[in-house]
Structure formats: C-alpha cells, structure tokens
C-alpha cells in the first residue's frame, strides 16, 4: 500500500476533536502540504510534535469548542456585572423591613446581612471599575466568608434557603468572573434599558417585601414568587443571551423562591426563623438543583461523545 504524506498528516490530524477537524482539517492539510518540501514522504519531527501539542491545547479547552460558547461567555459576563448590583439593591432595601420590625432577632439578622452586604459592595465597586481579577478575588473571599458564617452559625446540619442563596450567589459570581471576559465585556453588550430592567426587578421585589410583607406576608410572598417566575420565564422566551442569563440566575433564584414558599418550621432554639426546612424536605430541596445540574451535565456529555463519535466516523 502506498501511503502518501497527506495520509500521514491526516492520521496526525485525527488527534484533534471532531468539531475542530470538521472546521479546520482541509485548511490545515493545505498549509502542511504547501509547507512540505519536494519529495517529502513523512511529516517532520518538529511538525509532528507541534501537531500533537496543538491537539492537546485544543482538547484542554473543551468548553470553548461549542458554537454556543461565546454566548455563554457573554451571559457569564453580564451576570458578573449584574449579580452584585441585584444583590445590593434587593438586600439593602429588604433589610430596611427587618429593621422596621424592631425585634432584637430581626435587628440581629439585618446586622448579620450587613456584613455580607459589605463584601458584595466591595465586589460591586471592583466590577464597576472593570477590575475583573480583583473582583474575582473579592468574590472568592466573600464565598469563603459566607461558607464560614453558614458552617459557624448553623453547623451545616441546619443549612437553609437563605444560606444556600448566599452560597450559590457568591459562587456564581466567582465562576462568572473567572470564566468570562468580565464586566468590561458586559458594559459593551448592555444599554441603559438592560440596567434599568435588571435593577427594577429586585428593587420592586424588595419594595413589595418592605411594605406588604409586614401586614400581609402571604400576599407579599405570592407577588414575589410570581414576579421572580414571570421574569425568568420572560427572559427564557427573549433573546438567546437573556435565555442564558436567566438560566445562570435560576440557581440563586430557586433558593430565593424556596425561602418564600417553604414556611419556617418550629425546630426551637435561636435559629427558629432561619432554619426553615427540616428532615427529608430540607435535604430534597437543597440537593434538587444540583441533582438536576448533574443530570443535565451527564446528558450533555453523552450527547457530545455521540456527536464526536459520529464526526470521527464521518472523517
């Protein structure tokens, strides 16, 4: 059998992911064959090593390979900018309601929230200054602080919706800042209407909580849950970017909704109001979103593997 130089290059290019081969294989073969000297029958050692290295580089950044990745990256950038602003807007106004109640427990809750809000304020300022890395470091410190507060105050066994909301929000902020170009990119994408919409929702929710919840908690909770659900649903039906932003924000929003829907239960002790869920319900509600995420990741991995296999057969 007479194996040509092109066949040998083609074998080397088989190391690349199927998606990359579909996009670049013919082009790369053209470049390699143009660069080959007359009479060359085998790929040179340097070219071989370089192709192996290139394939390794491409395979080490699989998350960027999908056509949808730029949109996800933009969505993460938008989340990195908006999340600190939303958290500050919502919880600052919310704490006004806690202070208005005037009970020592609610005062203590508001003061405890204020420390965490200080962390969010630092993240928000760094984000607005477009200092992505500093903001990511501050968000990571905030995540550690929130985890410490949760473990210290509630000993993990009483982990509740507010704790999970704080943990997932700070965790999401870290991921958004690390995995995206950050706030600078978000500021390119967003206009004043986006900012107005993003801030109107949490401020509206906090206002409802502030002025309706004291007298009519059930009405307040219903309005807030409906508004959260409607906003996320509306975003899911809008542009591809807002759909992805809504998907990312769905995790903390889930814990916010659960906090409102599942009433505090009486387990006694000083954490009566914050340890809303006990027993199997607590475990189920805590784990549910992560179980869903795991299933989605498994299905996506299987689909991607099947796709890659089909691509290899095609090539």
């Amino acid at each position: 059998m007479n194996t040509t130089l092109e066949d040998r290059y083609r074998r080397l290019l088989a190391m690349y992911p199927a998606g990359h081969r579909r996009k670049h294989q013919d082009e790369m073969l053209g470049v390699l064959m143009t660069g080959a000297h007359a009479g060359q029958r085998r790929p040179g050692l340097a070219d071989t090593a370089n192709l192996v290295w290139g394939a390794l580089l491409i395979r080490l950044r699989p998350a960027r390979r999908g056509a949808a990745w730029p949109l996800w990256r933009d969505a993460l950038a938008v989340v990195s900018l908006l999340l600190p602003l939303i958290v500050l807007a919502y919880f600052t106004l919310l704490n006004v309601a806690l202070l208005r109640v005037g009970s020592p427990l609610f005062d203590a809750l508001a003061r405890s929230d204020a420390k965490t809000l200080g962390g969010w304020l630092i993240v928000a300022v760094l984000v607005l200054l477009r200092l992505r890395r500093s903001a990511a470091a501050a968000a990571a410190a905030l995540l550690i602080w929130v985890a410490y507060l949760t473990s210290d105050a509630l000993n993990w066994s009483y982990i509740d919706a507010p704790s999970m909301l704080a943990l997932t929000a700070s965790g999401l902020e870290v991921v958004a800042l690390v995995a995206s170009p950050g706030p600078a990119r978000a500021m390119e994408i967003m206009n004043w209407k986006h900012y107005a919409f993003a801030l109107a929702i949490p401020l509206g929710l906090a206002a409802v909580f502030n002025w309706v919840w004291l007298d009519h908690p059930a009405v307040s909770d219903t309005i807030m849950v409906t508004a959260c659900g409607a906003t996320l649903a509306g975003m899911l039906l809008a542009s591809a970017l807002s759909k992805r932003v809504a998907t990312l924000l769905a995790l903390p929003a889930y814990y916010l909704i659960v906090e409102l829907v599942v009433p505090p239960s009486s387990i006694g002790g000083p954490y009566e109001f914050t340890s809303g869920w006990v027993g199997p319900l607590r475990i189920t509600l805590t784990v549910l979103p992560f179980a869903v995420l795991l299933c989605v990741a498994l299905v996506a991995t299987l689909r991607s593997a099947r796709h890659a296999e089909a691509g290899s057969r095609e090539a």
Partner: protein
Amino acid sequence: MSQRPLQEPTFLILTALAAGAQHGYGIMTDVTNISGGRVKLRAGTLYAALDRLADERLIEVDREEIVDTRLRRYYRLTPPGVQRLAAEVERMRAHTAVAARRLDLLGGLA
C-alpha cells in the same frame, strides 16, 4: 484597563492580519518575515491560536477559496482585534520609551 499582555505569536499573528486578510500559510510566512526569521509558526500552534482568537472575536473569517483543490480560508482582524492590537502597541511603546530613556541616562553616566 487590566488586559493581559499578548503572547509573542499572538501579537505577530494580529500584526500579520493588520496588513489585510490572509490565509493560514500566508500568516505563517508573514510572521517569519516580521520577526526577521526568529519566530516560525507551525500549523498546530497557528490553528490553536487562530481558533482562540476567533473565540475571543479578535479575528474572523474573511472569505474562502479553493486553490489547486485545497481550501484556503482567509482571516481578518475584527474592530475589537484592531483595538486590542493598538492597545498592545501602546503598552509596548510606553515600556520601550521608559527603557530607552533609562538607557540614555545610563549612557550619559558611563
């Protein structure tokens, strides 16, 4: 603004494309020329870089041609790519200006 400095091959690829749209082999030879033969890109490095730059929207496909039954894809700089290259040039210019002034000073003292 906190942008990481460009790596040399990336800088040279963007510089090659600043002259106009080029195909893969054209970029390789241009990079060799620009660097005075010091940097020789190979296909694996080139296409890993082109893929990443396209992901970052600094470059995009200009057109495709078939020459001698081979596909040639031409790439060009995007407006953000032009800005990124300009920012890098400005950063390097500022550094080299300081270095030149200090070398002058050193020469003056010697």
